[in-house]
């Protein structure tokens, strides 16, 4: 036990929990890992050129930066104001009320389940085949590409592996995450490196060498024949609209709020870490997008995206139509092919693990709040892992995968992005009203949170700009008929219902708890501090 002066301003004594705190750089590393440049670029170029023909994707990534900046600012300021809480669930609960907090969290969890299902689909249908091909299992790769049932068949063992990893305990999860991250990062760097140190002529040569003379131009011509075209009149608008995809890729780096309690000088460090992550991420996304256009060629990238979304089999490409599958044309070096292909496969698996963590953690929180059955929070006696929550999450992901494969889920998913924007608007409103509704917390917050610009706190400004940004994203998602193919009222209502259903669900659970004995309104009852 030791007492000491830590600055000229005050004295502290050593006590449990007073750890040497994380530097901004530690925090940055943990936050930056969530941004996934390689996968983000592959996803953006898989859909944006088709949905927004003629749009300039690198420019869209640049236009999205201010919006991402204000989202980052909102997260950094909320994190500094409530460092021990972490996450929009608590921010919304405290600023608006617990019902809205639950609705936001419920929808966010559903979105993660849907995203995990899509990632399983990506893993099976897009990334596994090139990886198998690169290590010589060409028959297996071909079976995956040509067999429509392969995705579902392979999803089950993939989910079982996930459940086994989680059932082995948190240390096993962390080790798996770390290993996969390293493999993923190396693969992405090599992929970008090939593009950086080579050129379009080399790619065309490699492509034609495998696919046949003039195949590169033939594919572009085939897309044009099939109806792909760009109009100068819509090019500018489509560049702006493509920010929807850019925002999706810029998400995640703000999540450092979940461990903000350990950050040294959280008011400054959270801001530094978030903004550095965003800065480096933006440079890599914008630079990567320009590299892709330079290396593959804009017409080729657009043609591939168009054909993949209209008649995927027509391209005749052996390992699928995604930029990550193009590695066989990018280099003849088998080691490089393997490093890049296995890197992309590891990327998807690396993302699935934190997604699973988020789902199970939220289920735990609901169970502790009595909003879900207690058995969800039960842990295995031997490994102390959340077996029930993990199995439940895996089953839900599988159900979402079946929906993805058997329905026009892409329209549904893009609508989901629109509803996600509605949720973003709720969080923005929470930021705008927080300084006034929770004056007690706001007035004790670090000076940076209380800092004002033109008479309004910075948090309010960040809320206003994030609200505008999310409003634009929501507007694009709901009003542009080309997004996700076709936006129907059925898919729109079904995705909105995920958010809306949280309200009656909460009411029903509330009634059940009350009938059992305890008044659930006491859970968040404000106690007077007098």
């Amino acid at each position, binding site marked *: *036990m*030791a*007492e000491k*002066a830590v*600055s*000229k*301003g*005050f*004295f*502290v*004594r*050593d*006590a*449990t929990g*007073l*750890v*040497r*705190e*994380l530097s901004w750089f*530690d925090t940055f*590393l*943990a936050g930056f*890992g969530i941004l996934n440049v390689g996968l983000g670029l592959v996803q953006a170029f898989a859909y944006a050129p088709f949905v927004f023909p003629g749009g300039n994707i690198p420019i869209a990534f640049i236009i999205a930066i201010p919006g991402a900046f204000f989202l980052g600012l909102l997260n950094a300021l909320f994190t500094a104001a*409530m460092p*021990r*809480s972490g996450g929009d669930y608590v921010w919304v609960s405290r600023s608006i009320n617990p019902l809205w907090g639950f609705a936001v969290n419920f929808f966010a969890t559903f979105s993660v389940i849907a995203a995990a299902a899509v990632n399983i689909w990506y893993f099976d249908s897009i990334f596994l085949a090139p990886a198998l091909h690169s290590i010589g299992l060409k028959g297996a790769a071909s079976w995956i590409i040509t067999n429509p049932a392969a995705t579902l068949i392979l999803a089950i063992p993939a989910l079982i592996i996930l459940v086994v990893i989680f059932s082995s305990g*948190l240390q096993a999860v962390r080790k798996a*995450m*770390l290993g996969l*991250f390293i493999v993923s990062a190396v693969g992405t760097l090599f992929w970008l490196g090939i593009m950086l140190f080579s050129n379009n002529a080399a790619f065309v040569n490699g492509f034609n060498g495998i696919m046949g003379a003039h195949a590169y131009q033939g594919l572009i011509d085939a897309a044009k024949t099939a109806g792909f075209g760009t109009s100068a009149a819509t090019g500018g608008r489509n560049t702006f609209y493509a920010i929807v995809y850019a925002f999706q890729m810029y998400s995640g780096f703000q999540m450092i709020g*979940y*461990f903000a*309690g*350990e950050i040294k000088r959280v*008011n400054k460090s959270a801001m530094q870490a978030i903004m550095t992550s965003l800065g480096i991420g933006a440079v890599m996304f914008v630079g990567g997008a320009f590299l892709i256009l330079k290396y593959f060629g804009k017409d080729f990238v657009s043609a591939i995206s168009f054909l993949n979304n209209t008649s995927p089999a027509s391209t005749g490409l052996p390992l699928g139509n995604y930029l990550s599958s193009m590695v066989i044309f990018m280099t003849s070096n088998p080691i490089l092919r393997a490093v890049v292909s296995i890197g992309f496969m590891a990327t998807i698996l690396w993302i699935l693990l934190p997604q699973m963590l988020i789902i199970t953690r939220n289920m*735990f929180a609901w169970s*502790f709040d009595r909003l879900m059955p*207690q058995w969800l*929070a*039960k*842990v295995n006696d031997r490994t*102390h892992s959340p077996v029930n929550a993990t199995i439940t999450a895996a089953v839900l992901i599988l159900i979402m995968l079946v929906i993805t494969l058997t329905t026009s889920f892409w329209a549904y998913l893009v609508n989901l992005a629109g509803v996600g924007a509605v949720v973003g608007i709720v969080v923005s409103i929470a930021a705008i009203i927080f300084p006034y509704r929770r004056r*007690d*917390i706001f007035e*004790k917050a*670090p*000076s940076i949170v209380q800092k004002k610009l033109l008479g309004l706190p910075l948090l309010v400004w960040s809320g206003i700009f994030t609200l505008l940004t999310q409003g634009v994203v929501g507007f694009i998602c709901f009003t542009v008929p080309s997004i996700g193919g076709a936006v129907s009222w059925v898919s729109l209502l079904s995705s909105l219902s995920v958010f809306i259903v949280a309200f009656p669900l909460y009411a029903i659970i509330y009634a059940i*708890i009350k009938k*059992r*004995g*305890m008044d659930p309104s*006491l*859970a*968040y*009852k*404000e*106690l*007077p*501090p*007098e």
Partner: protein
Amino acid sequence: MPGIHIFFATDIHGSETCFRKFLNAGIAYKADVLIMGGDMTGKLIVPLVAGAKGTFHFEWLGAAHEVMESELADYEKQIRMAGGYPYRTTPEEKQLLEKDPQALKRVFAKVMTASVAQWLTLAEERLKKNRIECYITPGNDDILQVDEAFQSSGWVKNPEGQIAQLKDEYEMIATGYSNLTPWNSPREMEEDQLKERIEAMVQKVKDPKKAIFNFHCPPFDSGLDTAPRIDRTLKPVTGITGVEMTAVGSTAVSDSIKRYQPLLGLHGHVHESRAAIKIGSTLCVNPGSEYSEGILRGCLIWLEKKKVRDYLLTCG
């Protein structure tokens, strides 16, 4: 409603805001018994240094202040409410405290015991008239001297190492001691010593299965004890996957719960591990702590006919 309602909170670390909320929880939650699980004293002294012409200067919330003595009371209240100890001093004494850890230790002891004594007086004023029972066990971070303050309290009881009778119906054993921590805190011991301490109490309980085990330290690897793993320099281990978490609870506590299967386990110590779990038939709770934000996390438990009828984790 039949049975008794217990409100349990813990680890408020000097936050007077949280302590006052704790006292008000009795009426707000209609609780018959209030239990504070330990670590009630703070970690921070803010020296208010006397200057010229009746001014005091100090640092608070990242800003330097210089105010007249007449304005000081408001700031002192702010500091206390947030979990700090305001301490009026001179430039000479401050300089001494910066150089002499033993002198600083004495000042800490003085402000902490004075604060606890004031809190116990306040608790008696608020709770006695409403016949709300109150039990506060000092935790591993509370210095031994604070125990003296309880001896003069006419209402609040310190059940450390004893058997308390809640509403003359439920037996409760309690200890604020924890297993060893990297901070060498005032009340910590080896696991086998902690086991002996617990066993000594359990042997005096009439029916352990109907008793409450109020142990500050949570059971090992239970989900109530997950904290950041720290390295030898007391820095959290982190990396590309975030902060590494590990179990830090007590095997002695865990073994006693598994062996005796009490009605209820009340725990704290690990602020970030808010949870309610079952170990066998025992409900074990750690309500967590957000004292630094002035938020009182707690757990409301309804006991009826020697069973846990229901519970609710609260955030007030």
